[in-house]
């Protein structure tokens, strides 16, 4: 319901571009340090584990391929969604819940401003647009983490790693990740705004709303991930098979 109302209000006047840019900055730019930190170590740890497994067959040169595909299809969109939920989703729920209990949302209505259009729509659009962007940042930084472990620490041949990366990782893998990140962004903003806008009571309920927003988004993202993989496997069969 909230999602459909927020979507409808996107196309109604007045348009308030400043609110959209503010939210894009909050969701995207504000999350950049945490995404880069987590992305780097995710790439590095995945590379470490892949090298350990591949060394059984003396095929460590496949590390770029393995880490690249894992990041593009799964790790980048899911970890980005979870990290941004922890940072921006919780912030959205807390801010809206505080506005609700201090009657700021009612105040908007008294000025004939629709609270869904003013508060929810910009957060929804910003999340849907910025999660794919941040997911790509996660991919790039994750590959840097992989490079540091594989090339610098384990001194695997860069040429072979790159060649196998190019051979194994397809643009469709990145597209799947971006599509998933888009839906995760919508999920996060909807859960966070719903919990924030529907809070009743005082400070304790604000805290509970934030907790519910983070937990419900995290669970929904993981469940949705499973179904999105199933759907996308129909449209983009893995390896072109």
């Amino acid at each position: 319901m909230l999602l459909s109302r927020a979507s409808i209000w996107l196309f109604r006047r007045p348009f308030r571009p400043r609110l959209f840019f503010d939210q894009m900055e909050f969701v995207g730019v504000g999350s950049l340090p945490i995404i880069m930190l987590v992305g780097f170590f995710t790439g590095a740890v995945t590379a470490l584990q892949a090298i350990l497994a591949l060394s059984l067959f003396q095929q460590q040169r496949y590390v770029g391929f393995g880490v690249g595909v894992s990041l593009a299809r799964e790790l980048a969109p899911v970890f980005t969604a979870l990290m941004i939920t922890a940072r921006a989703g919780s912030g959205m729920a807390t801010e809206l819940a505080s506005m609700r209990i201090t009657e700021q949302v009612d105040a908007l209505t008294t000025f004939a401003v629709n609270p869904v259009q003013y508060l929810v729509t910009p957060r929804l659009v910003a999340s849907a647009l910025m999660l794919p962007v941040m997911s790509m940042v996660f991919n790039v930084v994750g590959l840097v983490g992989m490079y540091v472990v594989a090339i610098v620490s384990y001194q695997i041949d860069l040429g072979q790693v790159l060649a196998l990366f190019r051979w194994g990782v397809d643009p469709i893998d990145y597209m799947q990740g971006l599509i998933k990140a888009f839906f995760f962004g919508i999920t996060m903003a909807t859960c966070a705004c719903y919990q924030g806008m529907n809070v009743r009571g005082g400070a304790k309920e604000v805290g509970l709303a934030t907790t519910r927003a983070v937990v419900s988004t995290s669970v929904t993202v993981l469940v949705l991930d499973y179904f999105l993989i199933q759907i996308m496997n129909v449209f983009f069969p893995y390896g072109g098979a």
Partner: protein
Amino acid sequence: MTEDLTRRDERWQIRIRDLHKSFGAQHVLRGVNLDIERGKINIIIGGSGQGKSVFMKHLMGLLAPDRGHIFVDGQDIIGLGDVAIAKIQRKFGMVFQYAALFDSLNVVENIAFPLLERYRLPRKEVMERVRELLTRLDLARVPGVEQKFPAELSGGMRKRVGLARALIDRPQILLYDEPTTGLDPIATKNVDEMIRRTADDFGVTSVVISHDMASTFRIADRVAMLYEGVIVANGDRREIMAAPHPVLKEFVETSGAVSLSGGPS
């Protein structure tokens, strides 16, 4: 003879008839009947949980009743569409219990918000109206007040900024939701004076929800009491003080602020 509520009445600006509202099993308003007098300070008193705030939110269409009618200048606002209700809402300004200022906006942006959202006015004209209100509400003498954020203001100042925001679009009716809650006696007296002065200077109809008896009998022109979802006492201040309803009498005497036999203490 039945009264025609759909005609604009010179004396009564808002006329409420048989207003009912329930939240689940809780029947909050059980048939409220009340007339609000034009240009006067109308105070609605009642204990906590008696539905005062719910009633007030109905007046400007923030809540829809289960049953009943609210006529504003002869127009029934119940069941109106978004555009029509927005037009009615422009007649109202509301001062919230804790001011409800937007945390992310400074004082000027808060006060200018209704104008910027409703009209495409030149920035210079908006700023002129903001500065005029800051002066009239004694806020202009606070150094740097224009750029302060709500968190940097005292309770009394927040109320004034909230009032300025409610007044900027020149409303005909001002609603105050428990304006003196949480204020010390001096700040309470200042807010009372502010309400009186605003009613006199701007000529607005004031509807005040309160449980502060001292304030009520200091500034009210008319007093109504909401008890168990209905209006049990209603009249001008002298009428109410001369012949109080038993529930009102108990309520007032328990508060200790006013002696009903002899006027304000």
